[in-house]
Structures are given as structure tokens and as C-alpha cells.
């Protein structure tokens, strides 16, 4: 996986770095301007969750090639407290942080594929993918 880029996450400054790196990689892959914004925004949400709830972790980016399609995979990983009820956390408006509770369900809407694995006391991994739309 020579293309993989990982950004350590431990403070709110890393949120900006992570979404810039994501935007750069997505831009090289030929995503539309709108998609670049959607990808950067989704990254912003999952990385902020790491800073907010797990304090530290990492964000990894990689290129996807599958049957003539290309895309980007974004993995946000932490060894934080984990999420006791994922179904609840994925609902619009559910928050334990006095916030809007839109980060996870919103990020899912911004990307094409979304998977979250979490275990209390072990940590959380969010994997999101988006594919380049071939017009024509």
C-alpha cells in the first residue's frame, strides 16, 4: 500500500491538516470540486470526533482501484472510549458532547460507503469511501 498516507491526530490543528491532505489526494484522483468539498467535510467530522472523544488517533488515506473505477478510502482510527450504542450514535441529533449530533450521520451522507466499528474501552474505526464519478 505505497499510496497510504497517515496523519497522526492529537489536537484540533490536525483537523485542518487532515482535510487538506484528503483534499489533495482526492484532487489528484480527479474528483469534482463538489466531491472535494464533501470529502474534506466528512474528514473534518470524523477527525474532530477523534479529538473530541478519544483525544488521539490517526487518519489514513488511500487510493482505491477496482474494476476500472477509482476512489478514495478514508480511515479514522482511535483507541479511545468507544461507542456503546452505534445505532444511536448514527442518528441525526444524538450527541453526548452538547453538539449537533450530525457528524457521523452527516459524514455517511457525504460519502458513498460508510462503516463504523467500535468497542467500548477499545476504540473506534470509521471507514469511508467515495468513488470518482465518470461522466460519459
Amino acid at each position, binding site marked *: 500500500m505505497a499510496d497510504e498516507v497517515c496523519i497522526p491526530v492529537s489536537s*484540533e*490543528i490536525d483537523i485542518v491538516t487532515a482535510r487538506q491532505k484528503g483534499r489533495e489526494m482526492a484532487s489528484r484522483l480527479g474528483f469534482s470540486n*463538489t466531491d472535494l468539498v464533501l470529502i474534506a467535510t466528512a474528514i473534518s467530522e470524523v477527525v*474532530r470526533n477523534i479529538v473530541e472523544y478519544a483525544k488521539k488517533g490517526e487518519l489514513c488515506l488511500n487510493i482505491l482501484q477496482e474494476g476500472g473505477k477509482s476512489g478514495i478510502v478514508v480511515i479514522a482510527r482511535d483507541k479511545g472510549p468507544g461507542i456503546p450504542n452505534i445505532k444511536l450514535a448514527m442518528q*441525526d441529533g444524538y450527541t453526548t458532547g452538547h453538539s*449537533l449530533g450530525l457528524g457521523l450521520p452527516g459524514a455517511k451522507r*457525504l460519502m458513498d460507503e460508510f462503516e463504523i466499528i467500535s468497542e467500548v474501552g477499545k476504540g473506534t474505526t470509521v471507514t469511508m469511501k467515495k468513488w470518482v464519478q465518470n461522466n460519459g
Partner: protein
Amino acid sequence: MLVPILKQGDYLIASIQSELSDADLLKLRDDLVRRVSEFRSHGVIVDVTVLDVMDSFATRTLRSMAHMIMLRGAETVIVGIQPEVAFSMVQLGLKLEGVNTALDLEEGLALLNEKIKGDSRRG
């Protein structure tokens, strides 16, 4: 990143120059709220044209800023939200409820003039 705040008559104009971190956004909010009091400003314009991400934190911060400024009796207008950013905000489920928005600085100023003239007629 420092956001320059310009005083123009009764109004304050903040033009964001580059991507902002969470801390930068909070600082902008606090600076603007403080200056509205200091200068007894009636209107505030925040130009977000250069922002290519408006996530839940940015939206929440701008909303709370507009609310604080409103409690000081002044109006806030957010100008320059890019079309792609607007699309992303809607997908994410974010709403700038109760916050004025306008296409650009010029329209923002026109909106403030309209609102504030309207207010003084009432008094």
C-alpha cells in the same frame, strides 16, 4: 490565522483570508462580539468566500456568534458561502437558522442597510 476586522461606520466587516482551525473560529467569534460592544456597531458582515469546508463546528460557531451579536442589538450577515459548500452543508444536515446570509459583500451591506433602517423607523 488572524482574521482582519474592518470598521466601516456602524458596521464591522470580517473577511476570512484562509482556512481556519477551530481555535481560530472561536477567536473570531470572541473578537467580533467584543468589538460590537466596543464600537456599538449595528451590523456585522462575515465573509466566508475562501472557506472550502463548513462543517458542524464552523456552523455551530457562526450560529452562536450571530446569536451573541443579536443579544447586543446588532445584526449579522454571513456572505460568500460557495455553492459546493452550501451543497455539503445541506447533505450534512446543517442549518444556519436565524442567521442572515447574502451572496456577497455588496448584497450583505444592502441587507444590513435595509434591516437597520427598518429598525430605526420603528423606534
